[in-house]
């Protein structure tokens, strides 16, 4: 389809602004010399352009989206309405606190409820995404050791089953990464962990359930090994949807946690953001939190900067409207609904796994948490059909594929996360489709290599894209 620039016609446009009602000013400073192109379209053409683009996007509202590790649950529409209230959207971030009590109330209440769910004492809403939260949490750990004069703690332990952001965040925070091999089920190898810790251990980054979809039952021992060595435990909240309301990171021995509001707390992901990655910590780390923390006394909300704050990880108070959406969602779920959602997320994953496991062997047999990983290793060897082929075939059935080739410790991995908002009927239909795809893999593998056939495009040439990058449209001069 046409680019917006290819639809642009000189002279087309819209009447948006009134004539200037004050004297015009010409600046003496050196002005822009090169022409500004942007695009020139009537409102109708502009609206249609984006409508056409929207038809080439698969969102949760279009169909099933079992993208592992991303928790693509349904986002209640009320969230959108609440985040569009002018009483929130029109509030300037530097308004005096007494005129922004509603915004501070939202941030305070969201932080409080997330503290209850994670078992933490304080929470900053400033980080804008999960990876951003990881970076923030690691800086808290760094500041903590420094504040004690314990400068030799320079290493962060990361299991090799971890999300790629974990080692990248630790590196950004100035740590050296110690990769610890996991067991085949993604769980921590206690002996290898014991061998890896020492007086240079700053901390451990872990997600539990792990990336293979299992709850690590040795979790209390794991966090104790780190604590005994003088390190701190960081909880990557990417998989919190499995256990919210069931067990809390704070009770499992974690000192810092980030949560992904755009995963667990149902705020939509917007095709790549905005997200929000609040970071919670135990009281002994609270003085290091970034930005300003909201306090409440006698019903009045105020902002204060923590005493030994690491500074700012972003401007202002984070992605505020995302917090509005998450709080709206949390209010509807409440005390009973939070664990209910987790239980059903786990039920749905187990049910789907059970329905397809004959053709899609799980990396680990047994009960999984909110997601499971199937390996296409056997299909690849026997039929020449890869995880990619299966994923691309799913596109022709209107289903977003699972996460592919992650975690790295499982060959030809497909990671399914159905979430709790999908019905039994959807899961059954999907299971039938997946079984049909595997039948095709046996009888007509080439039909899978050719997939997708009904998507707006076929498989793209990614190699050329990377070798000869074309990252923008070039305007005719």
């Amino acid at each position, binding site marked *: 389809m046409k680019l917006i620039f290819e639809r642009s016609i000189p002279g087309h446009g819209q009447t948006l602004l009134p004539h200037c009602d004050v004297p015009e000013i010409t600046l003496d400073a050196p002005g822009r010399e090169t022409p500004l192109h942007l695009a020139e379209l009537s409102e109708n053409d*502009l609206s249609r352009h984006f409508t056409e683009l929207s038809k080439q996007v698969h969102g949760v509202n279009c169909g099933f989206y079992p993208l592992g590790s991303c928790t693509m649950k349904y986002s209640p529409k009320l969230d959108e309405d609440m985040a569009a209230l002018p009483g929130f959207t029109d509030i300037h971030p530097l308004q005096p606190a007494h005129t922004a009590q509603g*915004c501070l109330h939202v941030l305070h209440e969201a932080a409080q409820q997330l503290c209850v769910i994670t078992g933490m004492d304080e929470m900053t809403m400033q980080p804008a995404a999960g990876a951003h939260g990881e970076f923030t949490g690691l800086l808290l750990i760094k500041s903590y050791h420094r504040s004690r004069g314990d400068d030799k703690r320079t290493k962060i332990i990361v299991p090799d089953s971890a999300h790629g952001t974990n080692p990248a965040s630790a590196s950004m*925070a100035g740590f050296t990464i110690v990769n610890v091999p996991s067991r085949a089920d993604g769980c921590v190898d206690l002996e290898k962990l014991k061998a890896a810790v020492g007086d240079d251990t700053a901390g451990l980054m872990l997600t539990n359930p792990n990336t293979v979809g299992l709850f690590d039952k040795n979790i209390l021992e794991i966090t104790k090994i780190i604590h005994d060595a003088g390190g701190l435990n960081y909880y990557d909240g990417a998989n919190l949807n499995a256990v919210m309301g*069931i067990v809390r990171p704070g009770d499992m021995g974690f000192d810092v946690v980030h949560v992904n509001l755009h995963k667990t707390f149902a705020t939509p992901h917007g095709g790549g953001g905005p997200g929000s990655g609040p970071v919670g910590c135990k009281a002994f780390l609270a003085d290091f939190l970034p930005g300003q923390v909201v306090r409440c006394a006698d019903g009045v909300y105020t902002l204060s900067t923590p005493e030994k704050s690491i500074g*700012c990880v972003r401007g202002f108070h984070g992605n505020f409207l995302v917090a509005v959406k998450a709080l709206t969602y949390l209010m509807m779920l409440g005390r009973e609904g939070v664990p209910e959602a987790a*239980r059903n997320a786990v*039920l749905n994953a187990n049910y789907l796994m059970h329905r397809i496991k004959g053709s899609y062997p799980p990396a680990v047999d047994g009960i999984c948490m909110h997601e499971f990983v199937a390996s296409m290793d056997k299909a690849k060897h026997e039929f020449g059909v890869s995880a990619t082929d299966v994923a691309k075939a799913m596109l022709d059935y209107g289903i977003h594929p699972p996460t592919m080739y992650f975690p790295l410790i499982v060959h030809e991995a497909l990671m399914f996360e159905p979430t709790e908002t999908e019905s*039994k009927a959807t899961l059954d239909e999907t299971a039938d489709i997946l079984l049909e795809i595997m039948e095709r893999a046996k009888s007509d593998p080439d039909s899978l290599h050719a997939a997708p056939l009904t998507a707006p495009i076929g498989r793209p040439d990614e190699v050329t894209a990377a070798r000869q990058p074309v990252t923008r449209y070039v305007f005719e001069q």
Partner: protein
Amino acid sequence: MGTFVPHTPEEQRAMLQAIGLDSFDGLYADVPAGVRLTDLPLPSGMSELEARRTMEEMAAENFRFRHIFRGAGAYCHYIPSVVKQIASKEEFVTAYTPYQAEISQGVLQSIFEYQTMICDLTGMDVSNASVYDGCTAAAEAAAMCRDRKRGVVLVSAAAHPYARKTIGTYCFGSGAEVVTVPEKDGRTDLEALKELLNDQSACFYFQQPSFFGCIEDADAICALVHEAGAKLIMGSYPMALALLKTPGEVGADVAVGEGQPLGLSVAFGGPYLGFMAAGGALTRKLPGRIVGQTVDDQGRRAFVLTLQAREQHIRREKAGSNICSNEALCALTATAYLAAMGPEGFREAARQSVAKAHYLEKKLSDAGLKRIHSGEFFNEFVTSTPVPAADILAALEDRDYLGGLPLGKNEILWCATEKNTAAEIDELAEIVKEVTGA
């Protein structure tokens, strides 16, 4: 209570039975009994109507000013209706990062269009798909410019305090030294900059216009920075890119900025949008997602996430940045905004912002509030106040005006945009006069 779980109890039982369990408890057998929660001390769940009422009540606890003359990093520009409609299309709103290109062409193409517009605005070669906000864009840019030989990051004291603080925090992580270059008359002190630059300097970050609204001598800054062998990171107020020499024309190595003025509401600080663009030589150092054009298996034009070898999911600890989620929907909003405004409409919004700010400055001057800096300003400026700034701002607040940002006991940073009318500026000046007695 609503959990958005569609199952009936019968369906749940059937599903549990299918997997060989008779209750939900069996799902959590691996969770140590000692830490299993028996109760979650949250309020009980609400119906949609109750939740709506509660949130609406919270929104009503805010005071929504009718007239806003405060900027300082968050700007009230006009947002055309079509922009809001486009940005609320469910397909865009509910998609994840476009990993599966075949069913994500709409998002990918919108990012390609965004990247094109950012390059068009800044005069740079290559843009990424966005970062969290203007402050993190500045901090990520500083990380891009450092190498083993040159590790010191220089930052102008005339840049936004939050950008400076964010750079400081990111550098606390990486261990890089940050040197603040003093401000003089609301701008970077060029002599001090010259003195502080040396063969350890990785880069210098400044903003056009400065935090105080003053127009910086970008050419002189660029010459000094490049003479010392360091890289130049130029932060820009997007509206200024319509009128002033662009980072590309100045010769900056990286152009960054806060994209909020491009169609996003002030929203108590977010979501916003950090834009980042670089000269071609730095393409592979840019953090975050980048969309590239290619062809599909039938030779049709297609778009994909590209140059992924830079990123965390491939390089893990060797990646230059950990960013994955960015602000895609905000980038789409900015694209729709820039297309709705068009080149002439966008320039007009910038011109009117400048004109209104200068009219405001004159009116305030007549009311006894004199600008404290010399030289040209864009749409923000700082005045001193003959009476405490708090008194003036309180009087304005009583009349539904959010005045400028107090910088000290007797200084205010004012801002105007195309949304402010001559009539409201006149009224604001009258209110100020009543306080100052001018």
